[in-house]
């Protein structure tokens, strides 16, 4: 770059492109980069050329062709596919979010691609093979909640990606073909740093895993699956004392003192261990083996561990530096009290139900547990809490004590469950949450909820980006309050609420400022969807039929599922039969794709 005399605001001297690109390259945040690209044409061009990391929040908001036309050289790509409610079986199988077209396009345009992170997408073995064969410098593969592939696909990744650092298939559905795919990592391969295969169901070829761990000195994250027995875990730990993130296999076998000693010794040699998970089926006999590492742990996932309160209390009492805890409701209120007094650095708490379908299990977990943690942990930011009762009083206490909350997801298991003290709705409680927690970005409501709470949310939820509603509200007013009030709302997902056409049509323009809106089992009519589709070309209004046939729907019919998202790519071409995208041509009779 030649030295150029630069005078601010001088029209005849322009800032050299290279310099601009250099400066822009320091800007990491996706939002900021997007803003930078909108300043002026020069900056748009600069960003086009130097953008290396790309985040696509909805794979159908844009097409692979548009991406490859705009950006010259992308090294890291993150794509999200299906809507969040797909996690709970609300999106029919075969809806879409196919990864292959994206990977094929990337293979042509960006052969230097290094990182691919996909969430809720359908990834086939063919796609994985393509990754292995076409991206020479491929380093990071993260498949979060994906499906559609088998261990054969993993084998091709293992065989071909010589520079792979990270292989993480968090909670994906993998067809386990019982091949020893791990053996496909060549003997010369030593660069593995992170391996998360905890969702695999069948047995791993342990010998191959052991050899892999042995020859990869930088391996710091290892999350094995349930099939790995305790004895083998001890062996693995012995080989990798540099471990920072460990996911165990089965933590249970009959009590054997020599095994205990071996395990405790291996753990105590892991001085760097920060995160512990797995712990499927725990035998209390072996739990103390973990104690040596507890004080260093910042993240602990016990949400699959059927450990009961007394043992949990003993364990948590040692974890003074814990920042994140995921646990089952076996912890009970008293366990949460101990947590609140021991773990003052706690930032995130998730309590999952051990018996979600039992209306009245014998577990002493109530709203009090959450209150203790909210009051006792000054750094608490993120909460996911399943419980069976709640009160406005508790919610108000939480809101007042912890205005720093940014994520608050409460799931009271019984729909329409009222305040257990007043028997009234929980409007005031949730209202207090949005009012006090000014930085609240994500909120999920449950229990008995009327339109009043949406008034509060619309009035106070100015930073709210994601809102999840189920069995809530009384009328369109509720939806209207939210759509008209929450300026920063990006994702809204609704199921089984009495929201109909009016609020939706009134706030149609709002929908273009959001990433997506999901409504299922509400009261939106087909006619309204058609109207929206006709009038809003930059929205895809997808009417998804699940049980009924898509043909012969009249305007008055209510739609089962509705998914509306903004897009610059037009109606998608890969929609299955049961998905109708409303556009300017939409008529009452479904046109087959």
């Amino acid at each position, binding site marked *: 770059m030649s030295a150029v005399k630069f005078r601010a605001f001088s029209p005849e001297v322009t800032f050299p492109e290279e310099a601009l690109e250099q400066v822009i390259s320091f800007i990491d945040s996706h939002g900021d980069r997007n803003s930078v690209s909108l300043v002026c044409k020069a900056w748009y061009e600069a960003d086009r050329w130097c953008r290396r990391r790309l985040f696509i929040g909805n794979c159908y908001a844009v097409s692979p062709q548009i991406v490859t036309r705009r950006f010259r050289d992308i090294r890291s790509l993150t794509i999200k596919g299906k809507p969040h409610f797909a996690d709970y079986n609300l999106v029919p199988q075969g809806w879409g979010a196919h990864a292959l077209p994206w990977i094929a396009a990337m293979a042509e345009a960006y052969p230097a691609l290094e990182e691919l992170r996909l969430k809720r997408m359908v990834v086939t073995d063919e796609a994985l093979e393509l990754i292995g064969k076409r991206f020479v410098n491929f380093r990071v593969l993260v498949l979060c909640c994906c499906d559609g592939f088998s261990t054969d696909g993993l084998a091709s990744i293992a065989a071909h990606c010589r520079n792979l650092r990270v292989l993480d298939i968090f909670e994906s559905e993998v067809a386990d073909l019982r091949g020893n795919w791990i053996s496909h990592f060549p003997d010369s391969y030593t660069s593995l740093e992170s391996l998360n295969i905890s969702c695999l169901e069948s047995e791993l070829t342990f010998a191959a895993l052991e050899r892999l761990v042995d020859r990869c000195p930088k391996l710091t994250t290892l999350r094995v699956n349930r099939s790995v027995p305790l004895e083998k875990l001890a062996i693995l730990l012995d080989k990798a004392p540099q471990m920072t993130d460990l996911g165990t296999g089965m933590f249970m076998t009959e009590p054997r003192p020599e095994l205990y000693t071996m395990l405790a010794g291996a753990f105590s040699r892991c001085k760097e261990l920060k995160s512990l998970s797995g712990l499927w089926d725990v035998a209390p006999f072996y739990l103390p083996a973990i104690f040596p590492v507890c004080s260093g742990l910042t993240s602990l996932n016990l949400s699959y561990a059927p450990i009961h309160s007394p043992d949990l209390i003993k364990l948590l009492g040692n974890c003074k530096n814990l920042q994140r805890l995921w646990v089952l409701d076996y912890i009970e209120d008293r366990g949460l009290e101990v947590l609140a007094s021991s773990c003052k650095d706690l930032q995130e708490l998730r309590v999952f139900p051990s018996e979600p*379908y039992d209306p009245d299990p014998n577990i002493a977990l109530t709203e009090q547990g959450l209150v203790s943690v909210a009051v006792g942990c000054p750094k608490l930011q993120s909460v996911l809490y399943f419980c069976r009762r709640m009160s406005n009083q508790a919610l108000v206490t939480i809101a007042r004590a912890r205005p720093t909350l940014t994520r608050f997801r409460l799931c009271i298991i019984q729909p329409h469950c*009222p305040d257990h003290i007043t028997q009234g709705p929980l409007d005031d409680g949730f209202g207090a949450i949005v009012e006090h927690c000014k930085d609240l970005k994500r909120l999920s409501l449950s229990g008995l909820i009327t339109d009043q709470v949406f008034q509060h949310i619309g009035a106070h939820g100015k930073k709210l980006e994601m809102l999840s509603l189920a069995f809530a509200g009384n009328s369109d007013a509720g939806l209207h309050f939210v759509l008209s009030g929450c300026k920063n709302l990006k994702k809204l997902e609704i199921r089984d*609420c009495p929201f109909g056409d009016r609020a939706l049509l009134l706030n149609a323009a709002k929908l273009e400022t959001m990433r997506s809106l999901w409504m299922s089992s509400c009261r939106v009519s087909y006619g309204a969807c058609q109207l929206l589709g006709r009038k809003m070309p930059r929205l895809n209004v997808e009417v998804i039929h699940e049980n*009924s046939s898509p043909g012969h729907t009249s*305007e008055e019919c209510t739609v089962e599922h509705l998914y509306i998202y903004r897009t610059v790519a037009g109606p998608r071409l890969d929609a299955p039969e049961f998905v109708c995208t409303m556009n300017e041509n939409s008529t009452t009779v479904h046109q087959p794709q």
Partner: protein
Amino acid sequence: MSPPHLGVGVEGGRDVTLPLAAAGEAMVGNSLELKEHNYMGLSDCSSSVGSSAISSASDETRSRLNLKATELRLGLPGSQSPERDSKISKLSSSNLDEKLLFPLHPFRDANNCSLQKNIVSGSKRGFSDAMNGFSESKFLANPDVDVMLSPRPSSNLGLKSCSVKESPVAQPVKMKDLAFPCAALERTRAIKEASSKHVPPANAPAAKAQVVGWPPIRSFRKNSLATTSKNNDEVDGKAGPGALFIKVSMDGAPYLRKVDLKAYAAYQELSSALETMFTCFTIGQYTSHGTTGREKLSENKLKDLLTGSEYVLTYEDKDGDWMLVGDVPWEMFIDTCKRMRIMKSSEAIGLAPRAAEKRRTRN
């Protein structure tokens, strides 16, 4: 209609908080009285109920609306006009007058039956069916809670809650009832892993049926929980009425076995069975130790092995303690045994000589 302005105009067009805040109470109050009547799949009860609610309210609302407000418009930025604000404030009160607001829909009076017929919900259970099942179970479990929606055609929607509160000025509590029909429990696909977990009350069989995707737990977690509980059940020996399978491990053996304790009547039978099962694991050791040097395999060999100083039979009881087999009566043993382990005598320090002696005397 002019094309919509994207993005920038949003804030300007959204300034409806003022009228809303003021009219908030009124709105909520109004919405309590004038309820949505066109629920999906709602049964006949709603139609008559709806009509009574509608007819009382519709006159009122009609008078409040002017023609301009009935014009269907999309809420586009820049197209907001003052009357729109007032329209919004009447939003909930005019909820039910869809016929005025929506030229799309054919004129609908309070009779909802026509709407119902159009609803595509063939394969699903009717709302009232699902609601009855669900609500009954909840009602029985929690008598303090207001009575849920029940198909009594005579009652007004606003009064559907418990019979005590008959006042027309509905209170927030009633919101729940009104929300109920919309709470679509109509879809009740049983979730296979979990539905067999507990026994539902006899008089509410529908309580067992689950709503799809509720509570919101990922499949991976659901499957893991199911497997965990299965494992725990096995460990506790709760495998079924006729059998009591427990795991038997043997030191040095590559895998465990399971035995049905109910299949035996006494310790002798059990130990014979175990001997047969674990013969293959001990033969190698036996000959390598070269005690007798005989090649012939027989149960006697194993028996000698077990009654000799090589192995001791132990079990884990309900308290988690490891006990020597044979001390308690057989019935008590079956009740308390959770799993067994054939332990090497060298580990059973202090037990082995006594064990050997005991076996010899018993045999």
